[in-house]
């Protein structure tokens, strides 16, 4: 069982994946509660051209991803101001444009090999820089989310009343989106452009099935993400499957398992609530 730990590559992969899992699990709870899954997936796809350009230039992918995500966010804001264009449509237009641009660049003759790594990630080969970025991100996300926790909770519950409660929902949401964008840019190198969204949606969605409170939801989401990361890496090690895809599949499996488990947990609780309600009203 500990054999994979002897392998230097895999040890580094486990560290990288655990850091990404902590970030993804915690941020993911707000992604799920604020119904931002589509936005998260779109942000991930929209940085594709930046990643390809970075690969062509031979610089760290982070340097291409960061400006691309900023450009995408600004473009979405601009397009959604066009009268008659909904925010969702704006996201769709910008993301397909960006992804199409990235594909054009990636398939050009000057493009170096390694497109697969950008699309599907390279969790088994993190550089020292990748590990430092993932660790720094985990710390920043933990601090950021702790600071705006009460505001996020209140804004997500009832946005219209949040302002009169002094919760300034706009600021909390801006912090959330900034952290999400940064997390995607960092995590995309390990899990890939197409699969990264799994870690921001799956563990939190599974945790939501298992608990009715925010603090245990965050704890469970992190635990599920870390565990699914380990299972995926073990699967990849022993079965020789692709790292990022194995992790994504393990996350999906955790979500599928949470559905019947959540039903079992909720069953007795719902009838108890109904009884107490009947006696009170």
């Amino acid at each position, binding site marked *: 069982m500990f054999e994979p730990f002897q392998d230097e590559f895999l040890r580094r992969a486990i560290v990288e994946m655990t850091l990404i899992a902590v970030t993804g699990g915690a941020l993911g709870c707000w992604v799920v*509660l604020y119904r931002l899954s589509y936005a998260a997936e779109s942000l991930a796809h929209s940085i594709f051209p930046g990643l390809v350009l970075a690969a062509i230039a031979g610089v760290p992918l982070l340097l291409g991803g960061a400006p691309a995500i900023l450009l995408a966010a600004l473009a979405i804001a601009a397009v959604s101001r066009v009268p008659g264009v909904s925010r969702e449509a704006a996201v769709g237009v910008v993301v397909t444009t960006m992804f199409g641009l990235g594909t054009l660049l990636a398939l050009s003759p000057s493009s170096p090999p390694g497109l697969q790594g950008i699309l599907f990630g390279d969790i088994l080969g993190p550089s020292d820089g990748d590990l430092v970025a993932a660790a720094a991100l985990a710390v920043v996300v933990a601090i950021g989310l702790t*600071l*705006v*926790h*009460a*505001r996020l*909770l*209140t804004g*997500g*519950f*009832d946005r*219209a*009343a949040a*302002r*009169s*409660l*002094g*919760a*300034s929902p706009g*600021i909390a949401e801006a912090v959330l989106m900034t952290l999400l964008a940064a997390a995607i840019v960092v995590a995309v190198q390990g899990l890939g452009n197409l699969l990264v969204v799994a870690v921001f949606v799956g563990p939190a969605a599974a945790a*939501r099935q298992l*608990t*009715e*409170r*925010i603090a245990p*939801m965050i704890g469970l989401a992190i635990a599920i993400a870390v565990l699914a990361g380990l299972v995926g890496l073990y699967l990849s090690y022993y079965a020789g499957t692709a790292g990022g895809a194995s992790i994504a599949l393990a996350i999906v499996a955790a979500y599928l398992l949470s559905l019947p488990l959540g039903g079992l947990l909720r069953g007795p609780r*719902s009838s108890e*609530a109904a009884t*107490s*309600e009947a006696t*009170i*009203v």
Partner: protein
Amino acid sequence: MQAEPLIEADGLAVGYGSAAAISGVGFSLRPGERMALLGPNGGGKTTLLRALLGELTPMLGELRVSVRCATVPQTERSRLDYPVSALDVAAMGALSRLPWWRRPGRRDREVAMEALRLVDLSDLAGETYGKLSGGQRQRVLIARGLVQDAKVLLLDEPFASLDRPSSERLEALIRSLAAEGRSIVIATHDLEQARRWDSVLCINRSQIAAGSPADVLDVGVLEATYGGAIVELPGPGGRAILPPHHHH
């Protein structure tokens, strides 16, 4: 009832952008006063409540609000699939007193628990908010307003989806809060209930009438308020007049 008014409006117009949604509003609200706010859907009730909360600034006229107001929105507007307990929701009322990075602490949760006790929900404090009945959720939101230490509570159609026992319970709670000196503004479609409060404000894009229910609630005022679209029903001891979208 001759204490200084907590809220005074005079020739008030409020709206969005450059268009006024309501105009010519003038009334005063004293401590312990329960005021019914009557008007058709789209007649400007919510706009007026938002102005009282300070979310919209007057375009014309004057509005003096000398105390903190708290909103008690319709409970369907909040998320029922959200992982919070009744106590968590009540404790949200403490946020405005805390610096932006702080979350409600033990002291704030004690205050929230006390507020839940006042609305008779202390034994359901740990229950998930979305699992409570409509009436219970309404009382949790009132408790949140009490945690805000609001002297004026603004209730937006609180009786809209309540059954009779829940309605009576909420009405008794409103009565006891008023007896403590809190003022309550109740946006409602229920004319019979409005007759039991201390005052009535009728608006339909502009103010139709304001005053005591006995002085204000006659057929002419109601026709002007509801655009003539009212029906008259025979009721016990006389006539009852109901707007057509009563109990939507």
